[in-house]
């Protein structure tokens, strides 16, 4: 890659102080996002996707959280960035949208007020200009009567409209990176596709890179260039989507893909595979997937690092040696 990455995360680790002790929720998370690139993050519930996103914007509760490692963005390390600097990144350079559009909007302020204050936080514009820009932003996310929605309260809108409004808020300052944390999980299936298309369309038009946290492997297959698989607080595989889907190098990625009915359609939600994730308190020192892995050997109990294999980065003792199947082909699915 010739360009410097937009975001370069190295050795990011998050621990929480709970009841006197501390637990490591994520460890040694590294990945990069190029300008305008679309990267998908998948992984079972609780593997640390959301907190990784939140930590990039310093949004985890400061008193009970410790973040180590670095996340370089436009020459600044986001980890430990002072609030005065971080405030210029939030909403301006990096935006984040969340799963639940109802609880993510302030119930006692109008949609317009909530977009307007974002604009006025980052740009010197007067109320009237802010209003015009807010209405434009609402129109750009496909809201039919933007002026009316501008003066509506969140509870007066449907779930899909609220998420559109959230997207308008997130993109109104044309950020370089949008972190979308399961933006459609709480919505009707019919609305989900519209929202995803909207996100892709807008980010492409603005040149905004997309870090897409989702359970929908179908969407990742269709829209992302790279796929990061997380397991129990670690990145276990990071690879170009095409190659990751056809020939994954990590048994967990392979397991996920094999248990999908088929990939060609959206809405292919992350399936559950047999066994359970070790808890944060009794994490094995070696491979964290070992308990559930069909390819386990004794050596797998030793501590391991993530390593390059071709275009893939894989965290598995047996990489290079295993040949793992990817998503079911349409013919396999039919059989």
């Amino acid at each position, binding site marked *: 890659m010739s360009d410097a990455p937009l975001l370069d995360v190295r050795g990011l680790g998050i621990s929480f102080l709970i009841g006197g002790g501390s637990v490591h929720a994520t460890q040694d998370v590294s990945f990069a996002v190029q300008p305008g690139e679309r990267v998908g993050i998948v992984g079972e519930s609780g593997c640390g996707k959301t907190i990784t996103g939140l930590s990039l914007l310093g949004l985890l509760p400061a008193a009970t959280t410790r973040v180590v490692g670095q996340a370089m963005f436009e020459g600044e390390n986001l980890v430990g960035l002072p609030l005065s600097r971080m*405030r210029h990144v939030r909403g301006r350079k990096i935006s*984040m949208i969340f799963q639940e559009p109802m609880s*993510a909007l*302030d119930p006692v302020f109008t949609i317009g007020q909530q977009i307007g204050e974002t604009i006025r936080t980052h740009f010197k514009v007067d109320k009237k200009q802010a209003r015009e820009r807010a209405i434009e932003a609402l129109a750009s996310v496909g809201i039919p009567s933007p002026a009316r929605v501008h003066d509506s309260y969140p*509870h007066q809108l449907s779930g899909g409209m609220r998420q559109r409004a959230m997207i308008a*808020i997130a993109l109104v300052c044309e950020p370089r990176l949008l972190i979308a944390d399961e933006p459609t999980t709480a919505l009707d299936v019919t609305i989900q596709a519209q929202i995803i298309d909207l996100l892709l369309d807008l980010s492409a038009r603005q040149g905004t890179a997309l870090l897409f946290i989702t359970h929908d492997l179908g969407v990742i297959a269709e829209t992302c260039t790279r796929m990061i698989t997380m397991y129990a607080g670690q990145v276990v595989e990071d690879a170009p989507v095409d190659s990751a889907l056809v020939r994954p190098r990590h048994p967990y990625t392979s397991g996920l893909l094999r248990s999908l009915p088929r990939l060609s359609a959206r809405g292919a939600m992350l399936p559950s595979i047999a066994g359970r994730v070790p808890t944060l308190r009794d994490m094995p020192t070696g491979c964290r997937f070992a308990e559930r892995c069909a390819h386990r050997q004794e050596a797998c109990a030793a501590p391991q690092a993530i390593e390059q294999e071709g275009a893939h980065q894989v965290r598995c003792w047996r990489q290079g040696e295993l040949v793992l199947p990817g998503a079911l082909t349409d013919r396999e699915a039919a059989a």
Partner: protein
Amino acid sequence: MLANAPRLRLVGRRLVQFVPVIVLATFVVFGLLKLVPGDLAATLAGEYATEERIAQIRQDYGLNDPFLVQYGRWLWNAVQLDLSRSFQSNEPVLDQILHRFPTTMLLVAGALLISLAVGVPLGILAATNAGSRLDVAVTSLSSFGVALPNFWLAMILVATFSLSWGWFPATGAVRFSADPQGAIWHAVLPSIALAAGGIAEVVRQLRSALIEILSSQYVRTLYAKGLSPSAILWKHGLKNVAVTLLTVIGLLASRLLGGAVVIEAVFAIPGMGSMVVRAAIVKDFPVVQGVVFTMVILVIAINLVIDLLYTIVDPRVALK
């Protein structure tokens, strides 16, 4: 903004809903008073009254009529603002109430003001420093304040600030219309005594509501947009917590009205509270009934104002 059609409809609907409340409350009190042992007419007639005199009184006061007729007559008159006359002084009850009303209102309003003026900043301070030593101190102080009997606090206040240091008068009251400054001066200690529980209540409710708001997902969104912590607290935090605050004010106003009865007794304040206590002791039933009626109307009026304020503060409160 306040006087639009949906709001007027809300007022109308509320007023209709309040009719049964008024009837029920006054009916229950009327009934309870009838249960008080002893022959009312004999008491009214005095110690050495003849049988004929007692019979005459029974006739005059309509005490021979069935209970429902007596209540109906009282209610019919009350609706026309005639609360009948005191057994004791023979003055119209309404005049007596109107005479004492401002004194009690000054006390209750003072206590409400103190509760909010002290409770709101403390609640915000505790919530924004949740878990810190300051928070622990404020929280334990307010648990103490809730448990504190206000007559006891009243005595401590009087012993310290008026008897020892002579800063404030120990007892009594001055009519506000005659001497506003003196009236406020007299109301300071009783208001503080009355407000102690109110402060604690405001602190506790405000603290927990604000902590919930500040850890909510929409506040996380506000941070993610780049807003400053002070904008988040003062603009979004306060507007959201105002809903809770309104509820607390409504509850507090009714409770302070009740508490005023005790405090007026302790400080020998000639307000509605001490009036109803004395009237109850001497079986001056029209006065008791009149004060209860006034208090119920007052509580209802307060709730109506609160309901209206909800529609301004909280857009989710439907006006339809």
